[in-house]
């Protein structure tokens, strides 16, 4: 037993070194977060440079309206014919009266146009009112969008788990290094466990850096829950990929990899659709997390059972 445990530690170390030595794999773990963070900054800069046009042409004679609009972040230009300015594409929006009715003409929909509409509606006591979030406040919608963004990155890391499980075994079987591994005087299950734990550690480190980057840049709520959900999903995917590959001796990598990826995505989708059930299942809990529901303790237990099952399959079915 102690020999197995000692071997487990060394095998995990060896597997981690192999992962670190593969430039493509390391880049796969680090780049998604770095690239997403960089893209976020670049997109914001581009949006800032090209689309942050806050001008509004308004007919003169409405000083209170101007004050309210400026408070909402708009730069008001008072001109007798606001529509002409819009038609000449000198401003992105124009507000003017047509008889008793206000008209808001815009070439750019978005927060500022909605804010203008909200102020105009308030002014005339319209049939329905419109409230838009004030700039500066952290918006509820941002939280939901961010969860989708982090969730997509999480899915990518979970799918890497399938690759680490299935493709690494396929490679080692193909190049003969698996035979060398299995010649060690330890249980076969220990090899499987080492592969799964090493993969989970690598995936856990990758998602931790990603969460750190996104957390620093835009703020991720429930970072520990996110880390748990993605690491759980990664460990389960690795176990699944490994078990499928071990149980399919006559098959090439393509079949187990495609099946593993499809099943993983299916389970994650299930968790997204039914988060209160999904939070108790290891893969589905990642989908549940996108809805803000963290994984339960049962999910960890079931993940452990999946890993145990994969070790058993590896021990019994691998030829």
């Amino acid at each position, binding site marked *: 037993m102690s020999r197995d445990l000692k071997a487990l530690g060394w095998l995990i170390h060896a597997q981690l070194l192999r992962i670190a030595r593969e430039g493509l794999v390391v880049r796969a773990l680090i780049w998604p977060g770095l690239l997403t963070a960089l893209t976020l900054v670049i997109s914001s800069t581009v949006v800032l440079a090209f689309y942050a046009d806050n001008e509004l042409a308004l007919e003169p004679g409405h000083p209170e309206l101007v004050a309210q609009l400026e408070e909402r972040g708009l730069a008001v230009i008072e001109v007798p014919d606001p529509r002409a300015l819009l038609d000449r594409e000198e401003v992105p929006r124009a507000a003017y009266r047509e008889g008793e009715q206000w008209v808001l003409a815009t070439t750019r929909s978005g927060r500022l146009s909605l804010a203008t509409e909200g102020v105009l509606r308030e002014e005339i006591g319209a049939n329905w009112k419109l409230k838009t979030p004030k700039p500066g406040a952290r918006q509820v919608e941002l939280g939901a969008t961010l969860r989708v963004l982090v969730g997509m990155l999480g899915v990518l890391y979970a799918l890497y788990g399938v*690759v680490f499980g299935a493709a690494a075994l396929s490679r080692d079987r193909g190049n003969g290094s698996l035979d060398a591994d299995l010649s060690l005087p330890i249980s076969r299950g220990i090899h499987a466990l080492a592969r799964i734990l090493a993969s989970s550690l690598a995936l856990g480190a990758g998602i931790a850096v990603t969460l750190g980057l996104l957390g620093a840049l835009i703020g991720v709520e429930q970072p520990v829950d996110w880390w748990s959900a993605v690491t759980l999903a990664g460990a389960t995917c690795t176990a699944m990929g490994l078990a499928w590959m071990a149980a399919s001796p006559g*098959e090439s990598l393509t079949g187990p*990899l495609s099946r593993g990826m499809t099943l993983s995505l299916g389970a994650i989708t299930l968790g997204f659709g039914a988060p209160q059930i999904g939070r108790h299942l290891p893969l589905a809990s990642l989908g549940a997390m996108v809805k803000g529901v963290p994984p339960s303790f049962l999910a960890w237990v079931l993940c452990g059972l999946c890993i145990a099952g994969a070790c058993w399959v590896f021990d019994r079915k691998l030829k």
Partner: protein
Amino acid sequence: MRPARLLAVAWRDLRLISGGRGWWKLPALAAGLLLPVGVIPLDIPTSLEALPARAQGQIPESLQALIEPSAQAPVGFTRAEEPTIRATRIPLATREALDTLPGPSVRIEDLGSEPELPGRSLLVALLALSLMTGPLAESLAGERAKGTLTTLLAAGISRSELAWGKWLAWTGSATLATALVAIGGLASGSQEWGPWPLGLPLVAGAAVALGLWLGRSAADEVGSATRTMRVLPMAALLLGGAAWFLRGISPALGAAVPLGGALLVAGNLAVSPVELLAALVGNGLAITAMLAGVTRALDGRPPWVDVPGLLRDLALIGAAALCWWLPIIGPGIWGIAGNAELSASLDPRVGLATGALLFLGIVGIDAARLHTSTGLKPPSLLGISVGFAAGGALAVLTQWELPELGLASGELAEMAQLRLGRGVLPPVAVFALVLPAQELLFRGWLQRRSPLLALLAWVLVCTPLDPVTGLISGLLLGGLSRWKGWWAALAAHLGWWAVAGLLGA
């Protein structure tokens, strides 16, 4: 190129990867995924304006017949009695329903162009593309790992026949699968006739060529699969986005974007003969170029563009700067955009800790990759004492105006100072994480590659706004590291930070 050889290579690849007892599993999986998406009739809107009227919250009674409740709607009622909504976007149907309420209203004239939504055939193309990850990872890299690629290269076929044969195998099978789905979709009436079926083989061809090119130098399936999984969706997203954007300038230009143009055709967004021709030419040229790259790699020739050593070093400095500054100064973008509250609400500790962890990651991974240790020698008492004293002297010498963690003062650095300030992380975390990470990267790792590179990187990455101080401190820390090892440099850095803090206080 000889067609018979091409077909032979393609047939061999298909048999090798999809053959054996489980040959039916991949086609069954493809059918199980693609058929429901492509064939089952669904009521999918063709534009954002065609979305039904939906809202969250308590919908007023008079509108309940017109607006459906939905937790995902972008519109939410905050008060039902005097109808007030909160919205980030108001779809046309919801606005029309709201305007049925009696009373004065504001007339909206939206003169912006409403984006057209792609057809569901785009989803079929993207799903088929996602199923290619496994075969593409296995086709070249798998053969390389098993050693069978050498046998193939020694056979009586040219390198280009090998590359094109492999491309043919997977483009052919993806085209066949999507064509069957297209026929099923047209027969069931779930999709309308149009030029989109022409886009499906174009997407398959471009994606397979890109997948083969990405895996051209991968040593095995793991490297190839992770690379394909990472890059292929991103490339589809970016090139699709670029094609969409360029379409606004010139439809033919958008359609000519490799892969992106093919996605436009597959999504029924590029329908004119000129666009179809542009998509065919653009994608054809890109496929040819990528497969030429694969052929070159199979030949063992270096890539067309060989990055010289100096550029590599500059890229290394750039990567280090990115790892450090992106999480630390990145949040400032919201302040520049006018949302200073959001910038201020983001915890600077996370950025600082992430930057330090990324530095440690660079060093650890490279040490593992090069089969070396991090080069740390055992600490010596003399080195540590001299280092600490030298660091303290450096703080005095530079009149303790040194900013914390290496950044200089200056107007531009004001926001960064705030996020790098002395109080951001507790001193223990600075001593245990941030300063060791900086020292490991610059004096431990980069200095072993080249002392000059380490000095340059230190100045450019950590003290870009005060290069003189950067140069003095870099020379001192680098010299100490060379004389008494990394521990001495770390002690100097600690002394510098601690004494500057004490004198500043």
